């Protein structure tokens, strides 16, 4: 039977998918995601067995029809009634079991009280703003679309939105949670192993919902602290003359109206903070790898690469484009 083959396919796909892949609920590397994966597999197995049993009865009932019989007697009807009652009772038991399993899984995913680090996530059309607040405002910094966390510790993620509803979802680490304007949601994530975990907005949020990815980079505590210290620092001016020219251009053109580069007069807050944009692995919310070429391509024509996004096309000569992208790349 076709659907039976489909189940085999499904199970084997789970096994295969479990070994690869960046953004998958079956590639669990976080404490919550591992628990969820066990729950998912458990429920899928129970449900597959139930489905198979129903199919067996269905096939037997159809095969049975080939043998001629007398019309239904009250005796056979009563026997079927008992079987149906038993099947319903079994359903109730299974449903109750799954409800309880689900309840315990939820409890296990409760909020951690002793999170080492709190990161504020603001969803924007169509990128992610990650704010690392500190009691000392001078130590606060922010980044875009790329979040670094230390491994093995609980991280408190505070979810807010500045425009429409988004949903924060890094399936390898935890289930998703919405970012809703006017509310704050909190989840705890914890990466058990170092790695780069891809996530993506999961709530439809407009034209570029498809291109709103994020990366969580989990590394050991020392590496994380080195990264955080580097991010806290203001931008440094490069000695490269092309980059210096690019910096002047950035301040003169409309760029500075929307972007902040700490250590310069650029302090716009509409677009991503670019203080250390050169240190990120991707640009435009995971759309392109971060190279000088892709930076130039993005600055030259953001509306073709990501139609509808909020970055306007600023007319630039090819020299200006080269200088700007050199400056962006220098912001390590």
């Amino acid at each position: 039977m076709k659907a039976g083959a489909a189940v085999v396919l499904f199970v084997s796909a789970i096994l295969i998918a479990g070994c690869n892949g960046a953004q998958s609920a079956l590639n669990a590397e976080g404490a919550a995601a591992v628990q969820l994966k066990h729950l998912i597999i458990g429920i899928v197995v129970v449900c597959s067995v139930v489905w198979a049993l129903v199919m067996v009865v269905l096939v037997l009932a159809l095969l049975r029809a080939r043998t001629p019989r007398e019309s239904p007697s009250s005796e056979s009807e009563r026997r079927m009634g008992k079987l149906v009652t038993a099947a319903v009772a079994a359903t109730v038991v299974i449903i109750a079991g799954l409800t309880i399993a689900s309840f315990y899984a939820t409890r296990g995913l409760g909020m951690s009280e002793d999170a080492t680090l709190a990161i504020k996530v603001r969803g924007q059309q169509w990128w992610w703003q990650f704010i690392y607040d500190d009691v000392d405002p001078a130590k606060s910094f922010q980044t875009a679309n790329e979040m670094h966390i230390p491994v093995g510790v609980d991280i408190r993620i505070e979810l807010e939105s500045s425009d429409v509803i988004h949903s924060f979802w890094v399936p390898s680490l935890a289930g998703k949670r919405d970012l809703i304007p006017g509310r704050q949601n909190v989840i705890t994530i914890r990466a058990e192993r170092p790695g780069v975990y891809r996530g993506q907005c999961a709530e439809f949020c407009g034209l570029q919902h498809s291109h709103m990815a994020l990366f969580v980079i989990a590394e050991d505590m020392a590496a994380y602290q080195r990264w955080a210290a580097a991010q806290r620092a203001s931008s440094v001016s490069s000695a490269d003359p092309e980059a210096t020219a690019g910096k002047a251009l950035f301040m003169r053109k409309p760029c500075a109206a929307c972007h902040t580069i700490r250590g310069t007069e650029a302090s716009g807050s509409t677009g991503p903070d670019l203080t250390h944009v050169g240190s990120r692995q991707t640009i435009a919310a995971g759309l392109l790898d971060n190279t000088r070429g892709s930076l130039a391509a993005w600055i030259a024509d953001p509306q073709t690469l990501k139609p509808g996004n909020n970055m306007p096309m600023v007319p630039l000569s090819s020299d200006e484009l080269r200088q700007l992208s050199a400056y962006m790349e220098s912001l390590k």
Partner: protein
Amino acid sequence: MTNDNKPAQPTDLMFGDDELERRLAQTWRTPAGVWGALTTVDHKIIGRRYIVTAFVFLALGGLLALAMRLQLAQPEARFIGPDRYNQIFTMHGSNMMFLFAVPVMEAMAVYLVPLMVGTRNIAFPRLNAFSYWIYLAGGLLLWISFALDTAPDVGWFAYVPLSGPQYGAGKRADLWAQMITFTEVAALAVAVEIVVTVFKQRAPGMSLDRIPLFVWSMLVTAFLVIMAMPAIMLASSTLILDRLVGTHFYNPTEGGDALLWQHLFWFFGHPEVYIIFLPAVGMVSTIIATFSRRPVFGYLPLVMALIATGLLAFGLWVHHMFVVGLPKLGESFFTASSMAIAIPAGIQIFCWLATLWGGQPVLKTPMLFVLGFIVTFVIGGLTGVMVASVPFDTQVHDTYFVVAHFHYVLVGGAVFPLLGAIYYWFPKISGRMMSETLGRWAFALIFAGFNLTFFPMHILGLEGMPRRIYTYQPEMPWAGMNMFVSFSALILSLGFLVFFVDVIRSTRSGQIAGENPWGASTLEWATSSPPPCFNFRRIPVVGARDPLWSQPEELTVAGGLRTDRRELIVSSVVEAQPEASESSPRNSIWPLLAALATTVMLIWSIFSPWAVIWGSIPIGITLTGWFWPKQTPEDES
């Protein structure tokens, strides 16, 4: 009875069969030509029209799905841009839910319920005509806006603030919200008609425990419509107010709440699923009994399961909101209630299996679709149990897993039975049989195509593919399976093509059906195919749950209805004891005019709040014309 002062009125007791039919046809007929088409209140003509229109919308919605599959077959494809894609998926969902699935189920009921309960027309037949015109206007509104590239682009769920004044530019979201008003008015009208028809117009003797299961399912569905639809009308009206006159129902910075929308939408949206599914359950029970050659097993549990599903339907809307950040207690409650719906669903599945087990199943095309329904719907139900679990749902919510789940429930659970029902009742509606050969081909292609298209989506969802994305990047591991899904969608489409070809071919040249080609047990098979304009020459008297099986030779009939005016029997709610003979309205142009006036007002009100005031005047005039006494015999009592 009201004939004390006019003793000479003709009744059906005075005439032989042929003369009676001539006189009834004279009284009940719909005139030929355009005028007749515009003024008719015959539930069969309106029902047929409703069904055909809904299937046209199904075909259009299917084309949209193919367009999406073309775009998604490859990563970063550029066939369709994000703006058009968002319009397309919004149109696909809105069209399938509001213009196909709900209307087609109600349309089947408009056609079948009066026949199945043995009456001559539906209750409030002019309202029925009005309902169709309003539905048609709503459908045209949506599709014309799509043709003009200004279709809604905020999803069929239109979450605020994306659909609000700040982010939803232009009139797109207003068009969506007003399309809702059209289709909900149409659905509410039919629901009221069904409730009254079932409660007050049943043939004498059809007590509550003898009502056919399809009629029971439509009765429960009608109550769901009446209770669920006001929530969405409230939601869409307040959205229009936010957008048009600057209220702040959904604006968090002014004390509104974005989540209020979701609660209102899903308080309607979840029962909506059962508004589509329960009629399908009724169709399954009907078809399975006929083709198992025995009464359905467990009539009472099946009725109770229908009612239980209907009640539970209102207690689980929050499972669409499991990732918005709810209190834990709320999550647990809605997990339990969502899981509990599996119990009435299980009861029904087991009763159908028992019917098959205890019967002599005959595998005609309608039955094949029912078997396909059992295979796929059980999968959809079980994935429903999965997403009912909050922790499970946090990983699959808003992914292709959910797309797979609800297509299994809605296509496997409702469209398969519907297609079976078309094959089953087509002979009654058209007088001709559909092709058994083409039917088997259609079934095989649709069943295989459906599973090949939608099953892999479960895996795509678990592998992290979100819904509502117009493209994905080449580095994601989804490309191969998406290509496979898109190819499979062609097989599914081919199946539907065969189905449509069969319908058109059979309408013209199908084998003549006769009264009761399947040897079925319910009253609609006790009259000619297609039924005459007056449905039954004489009103049958029902003495059993399966009247045509317990009295196969000739049904007992009731008499005394007048022939010089449209008259039908009003009976008591529980026992269906005849209580009175009541007149039934004649054909009228006023429902069409009232629908036109309402359409003008509703569309105008997208642009100006004053439309509600000035636009009400023509509506008032047409309604006055509608209800003004016409000095016809129907006005007498």
